[in-house]
């Protein structure tokens, strides 16, 4: 009986081991298929134009750079104003992020900590608009930009983007979790609403504010349709639009195109590696849970 039990446990153990091995196999296959395209991109970006159009002799030649033509990166910078695109992307990204966090935090404070007539109806209107497809609102806003004469200005790239219903919603959810007693104590001490917001709510909400900051900046860095609609001249382009026009001009210079793609991805990948915990954080904040 005892022997049988042990054998059963052993059988279970080896089965567990096999399952664990299978899990590793799935993960490794997944990881390799995720990496290969990136490797292919990096390798191509370091080749000469002639080397690109040769069938690689073996696997290694295909994915591991055998030559390091770093000049490709310098050349990509030379043939199109990549530096300007970078600058535009960074400037617009910072402005949009600062604006979004500022307006969202203020509105979220009103929605979560203050009582006023019409609050819940107004909040419902905010929430409802997050369900509306972007193109429905983009059309009139694009028309508005044309009528204002804002096309091809930083105003068009920044101002319509800094009023985020989603950001307001997310911060409101976080502010709701802060204990009410904190405010009551401050109120007795004679603190005004702005002091409470600035010295109590904001410092306690650093994780939520950081999450919104990271999300907004990264979203803006990848944003494509809006900057495409409202920019015409080369000097106003953000990185994605610049990269797209680069692609149309140098459609077969794959080594330069891959160098450009690497340069567009690199900052965001670095930011992501340092801030990835906020992505998991955002799930908790918006109440989306399993």
């Amino acid at each position, binding site marked *: 009986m005892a022997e049988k039990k042990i054998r059963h446990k052993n059988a279970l153990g080896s089965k567990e081991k096999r*399952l*664990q091995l*299978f899990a590793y196999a799935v*993960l490794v296959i*997944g*990881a390799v298929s*995720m990496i290969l*395209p*990136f490797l*292919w*991109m990096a390798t*191509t970006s370091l080749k000469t134009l002639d080397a690109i*159009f040769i*069938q690689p002799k073996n696997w290694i030649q295909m994915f591991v750079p055998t030559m390091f033509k770093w000049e490709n990166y310098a050349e990509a910078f030379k043939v199109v104003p990549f530096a300007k695109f970078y600058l535009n992307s960074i400037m617009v990204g910072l402005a949009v992020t600062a604006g979004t966090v*500022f*307006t*969202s935090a*203020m*509105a979220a404070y*009103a929605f979560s900590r*203050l*009582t006023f*007539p019409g*609050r819940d109806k*107004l909040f419902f209107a905010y929430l409802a608009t997050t*369900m*509306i*497809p972007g*193109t429905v*609102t*983009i*059309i*009139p*806003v694009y028309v*508005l930009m044309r009528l204002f004469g804002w096309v091809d200005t930083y105003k068009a790239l920044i*101002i319509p983007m800094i*009023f985020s219903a989603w950001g307001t919603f997310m911060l409101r959810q976080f502010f709701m979790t802060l204990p009410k007693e904190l405010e009551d104590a401050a109120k007795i001490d004679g603190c005004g*609403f702005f002091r409470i917001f600035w010295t109590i709510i904001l410092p306690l909400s650093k994780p939520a504010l950081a999450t919104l900051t990271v999300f907004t900046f990264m979203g803006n*860095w*990848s944003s*494509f*349709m809006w900057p495409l609609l409202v920019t015409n001249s080369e000097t106003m382009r953000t990185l*994605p*639009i610049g*990269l797209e026009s680069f692609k149309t001009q140098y459609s077969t210079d*794959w080594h330069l195109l891959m160098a*450009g*793609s*690497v340069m*567009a*991805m690199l900052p*965001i*990948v670095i930011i*992501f590696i340092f801030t*990835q915990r906020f*992505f998991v954080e955002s*799930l908790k904040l918006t109440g*989306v*849970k*399993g």
Partner: protein
Amino acid sequence: MALKARTKETLAAYLFLSPNLIGFMIFTFLPVFASLLLSFYKWDITTTPKFVGVHNFIDLLGFHSEGGRLIVNDPKFWQYLWNTAFMMFSIPICMMASLGLAIALNRKVKGESVFRTLFFLPSICPGVAVAILWLWIFNPDYGMLNNIIYWIGKFLGFNIPGPLWLNSLGWAKPSLMLMNFWISIGGMNMILYLAALQGIPRDFYEAAEIDGANGWQKFWAITWPQISPTTFFIFLMSIIGGFQGGFMQAYIMTGGGPGGATTTIEYYIFNNLYTWQNVGYASAIAWSLFVVIFLFSLVNWRYGGKLIHY
């Protein structure tokens, strides 16, 4: 006194709200109705708008008789709607892959965070850069995929001709679906599944083990029902997202071709708005899309909370 405090609070609330509220009204709330209004006009932004009633919607959704046969007024729209729907067939496959990766990650493997970071990378990279990368991967002569197919063929001892990928009528849509698969399986959906799996109480499994359940039985009796709210949520969000997808790929990779095979509704709206300056028609398409998406959102609100197994 109490009344005064309340008015003060209301005043403060609107002061706090005002920066966001003004922008929200101008750039989000009013545009929803503005685009509905625009859908009743024919307008190219530069000339005076012309009121056409529901004509845009008739052009878009209606049909007419031609020699006894019913012909739709805008066959392109229906083709693009079909394209959009076709691309959404990859949703269940993507979800299964995300779940598979999440289950594997949830088994307390070594280097979990490294795997998770790697899987997440494609979904945070700028879409334009990813699209250009995949354009090169799909290159029929020198691209990565056809190189791999060539090597596999050589290994097996015969020559497998790789497809033309984006240049072929039949392969164009599956190619984009493959790319989307790569982008999305390790992204937010996997993280959602992982969070759901971690939320299942351990004693459920322990109880099942005492009853002698095997791994497969445990999955169907415990895991699957426990994560069903997440599955439902991801599925609906993917559908809602799918209706609005395909713009960037079409714009950068295929130009909507070959033969309109990769033009989605979103790209059609963009072309009407930007390329052809047909604001009224673009608004009509966008609003029709909105109605469809709204129906799916209603399903989400109505049933989303009810499917939770606790």
